[in-house]
């Protein structure tokens, strides 16, 4: 058995990130349309930006996948020449790292909603840290900052946690996940018969 990620794992992870990149095209305009009002309504869908990480991890279930998915998603935007590309690249790396930390803490064994939501919250924390440095959000008045954080936390759990888990459940039903997951003990037993 080869340890670490194989080329297959890597390519599939990147492709999952691209698929999300394409899906973002639907709500990207919505996000930027509500952003300038200053009431942080955009934060209610912010969690979708970290989704690729948890979905890719839930499908492939190997160390490093969450980080790679975030890097792929963000570098895609960067290389294609987006105005937000550079910021997105740095945010992506931090968010991926933070999600990876939680998954590592559970030894990559747990794939239940609780752990995935924790990873989502961790990504969220990573993005908030970046915002404190880059966006001075600490200098917003208190009620406004609270609104900002609460909205982002809600959306992180909703999208990166709950929605990601439900998407992967549906994908499992299609059978496509069997292609990529390592063969389990049950499979070997089935062969022995």
């Amino acid at each position, binding site marked *: 058995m080869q340890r670490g990620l194989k080329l*297959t794992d*890597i*390519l599939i992870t990147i*492709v999952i990130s691209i*698929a999300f990149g394409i899906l973002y095209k639907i709500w990207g305009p919505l996000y930027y349309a509500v952003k300038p009002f*200053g009431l942080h309504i955009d934060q209610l869908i912010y969690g979708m930006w970290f989704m690729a990480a948890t979905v890719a991890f839930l499908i492939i279930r190997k160390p490093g996948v969450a980080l790679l998915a975030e890097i792929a998603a963000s570098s895609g935007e960067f290389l294609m*020449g987006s105005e937000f590309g550079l910021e997105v690249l740095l945010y992506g790396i931090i968010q991926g790292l933070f999600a990876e930390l939680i998954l590592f803490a559970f030894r990559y064994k747990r794939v239940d909603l609780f752990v995935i939501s924790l990873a989502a919250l961790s990504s969220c924390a990573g993005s908030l840290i970046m915002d404190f440095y880059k966006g*001075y959000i600490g*200098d917003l008045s208190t009620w406004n900052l609270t609104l900002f954080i609460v909205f982002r936390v809600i959306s992180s759990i909703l999208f990166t946690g709950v929605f990601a888990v439900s998407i992967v459940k549906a994908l499992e039903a*299609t059978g496509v996940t069997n292609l990529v997951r390592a063969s389990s003990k049950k499979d070997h037993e089935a062969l022995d018969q």
Partner: protein
Amino acid sequence: MNSLFDAKHTWLHSINPSLKLVTILSLFIVAINIHFLDLMVGFLCVILLLFIFATGYSYKQLFILSLPFVLIFLSTSSSMILFGKGETILYKWAYIQVSEESLIRGIHLGFRALSFAMLGLLFALTTKPVKLFYSLMQQFRLSPKFAYSFMAAIRLIPIMVEEYQMIINAQRVRGVEQKNNFLKRMKRLAIPLLSQSIRRAYRIAVSMEAKRFQSDKKRTYYYKVGFSRNDLFFISYFLLMLGLIYILSIHDPFLPSTDVRYLPE
């Protein structure tokens, strides 16, 4: 990927992609540590100069690329201007409170976002992704399995976009309700797109592995990416210009030169 427009080949195109990436990431770090408005404006000008005169794109093309800049500026500065902390109140209405401090801080954030936007475009407009990955393999010893996966994935993007269109059309033909809740619609598009893409990626990956694309052993490269005199020029441009604006802001401050962060007395 940069076939958006055609551009003249300038010295910026011939800079080593890895070095360009590292420089731009360092400039990002520099920029988030600038807390004075005059320095921020200076920093923006340093990048603006390159953006306008060195990318090899026509003014018309650059203008079109710059249209979203207005939106970027507004979206990053508005919250801070309207709801930021500050003592010298300029305008107050219900929850909105514009103070001198929050106004300056908001403008500062807007300029910062603009400088990131231009830095990012500067890179993307003058770098071919394929060259970047070849350079990362040669200069940073990036494992070929990562580099070739990324390059293969870039080729898959148009196929996936086409597939996405096909899914939408197919669902429309079958009369799937379009006006539905957002998440449901998202999921209905995500499942077929993801499952088809994963299957295709799997097939490609298996054949790439069979052709030893993932081998880490000593390999040769079709594109050899090295360094040139332009690289030196690129780095010294930023070092000299940033040094210059720093000295200028100390000796001859042309804008209110106070820390934009909120520092309670």
